[in-house]
């Protein structure tokens, strides 16, 4: 009888987590995820859309969606990959809706290639180097503009977000081979643009 009591006492010592406590921990986890990944998601959407307001809106929607489905996140991939996947889907939905609602007066806030290439850290460059770098950036933007949606996504995830091929494949739902093929085509386009052969 004593033994069983001890066992019970030992059992109660390791207190099982209550649902409320689990929710609190999950909320804290999610808050830290938002804090650490929000700028990256925003950057990816900004580079994809070249529209600050739209990128902000979709970033918020992305985290809202993530928050709603946070309990379903099993951790098969990293949180970043999961969030990227949500962001890519939101972006697709946005373009689809915009195509369907072509009769609506939509404000096109996307900035031009030249304006986008104005952003460049000064660093320790000379004025000449700055101008050259700006020209190169404008050419890359021009090439990116001509890519298909999928190629653009893959290109930006690789060369702006610095994601590995396996992560890109998971985020886009493509095979690694397809990702490689898209990257190769995108790079060929960038190369051609930089050499002025397009």
């Amino acid at each position, binding site marked *: 009888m004593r033994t069983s009591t001890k066992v019970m006492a030992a059992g109660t010592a390791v207190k099982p987590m209550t649902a409320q406590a689990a929710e609190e921990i999950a909320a804290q986890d999610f808050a830290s995820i938002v804090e650490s990944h929000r*700028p990256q998601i*925003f*950057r990816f959407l*900004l*580079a994809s859309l070249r529209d*600050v307001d739209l*990128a*902000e809106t979709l970033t918020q929607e992305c985290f809202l969606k993530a928050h709603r489905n946070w309990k379903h996140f099993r951790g098969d991939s990293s949180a970043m990959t999961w969030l990227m996947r949500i962001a890519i889907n939101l972006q697709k939905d946005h373009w689809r809706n915009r195509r369907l609602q072509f009769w609506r007066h939509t404000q096109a806030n996307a900035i031009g290639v030249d304006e*986008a*290439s104005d*952003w*460049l*850290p000064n660093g320790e460059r000379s004025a000449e180097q700055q101008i050259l*770098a700006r020209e*190169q*950036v404008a*050419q*890359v*933007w021009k090439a990116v503009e001509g890519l298909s949606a999928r190629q653009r996504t893959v290109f930006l995830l690789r*060369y*702006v977000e*610095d994601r590995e091929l396996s992560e890109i494949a998971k985020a886009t739902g493509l095979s690694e081979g397809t990702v490689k093929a898209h990257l190769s085509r995108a*790079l060929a386009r*960038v*190369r051609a643009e*930089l*050499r002025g052969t397009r």
Partner: protein
Amino acid sequence: MSWRDKLAGEIDDPMVAGALENFKASVDAWSEAAYNRPRTVVTTARHNWRLAASWALGCMLAAGSLAGGLYERHHRQEQARIAALKAAEQKAALVHAAPEKPVKATIVSKRQPTAVKRAASENEDLLATVDSDVSRQVPAAMEPLAQMMDSNGTN
């Protein structure tokens, strides 16, 4: 491994690698500036009157179409009623014009009692007047006798 080394290992063309490096730096700078920019709250008051106007217009259209429908329905009912009355009058007139078919007349009077009765009584009055007028018209040869009868009747 730094980003530059990574690119150099992946892309053999130094010009492309350099351009991509600049591109990333540019996007990073733009994103950072946009992310940390001061946010302004835009009120939706500007759009409220549009919403109200569209609602008002929608309500007016709905009310107009409803009123139009009701008027059309009423108009049709009225026309149908007038047509029925006319038909009844015509039938009643036919009944009086053809007295050899009294059965039909009774059927008509059963179907539309008030209108038919009224029309019938009017017709009867008219016929009675005509009869009396006709009966008063006598041949010229009988005129003295008729005058005598009149003077007898009045006196």
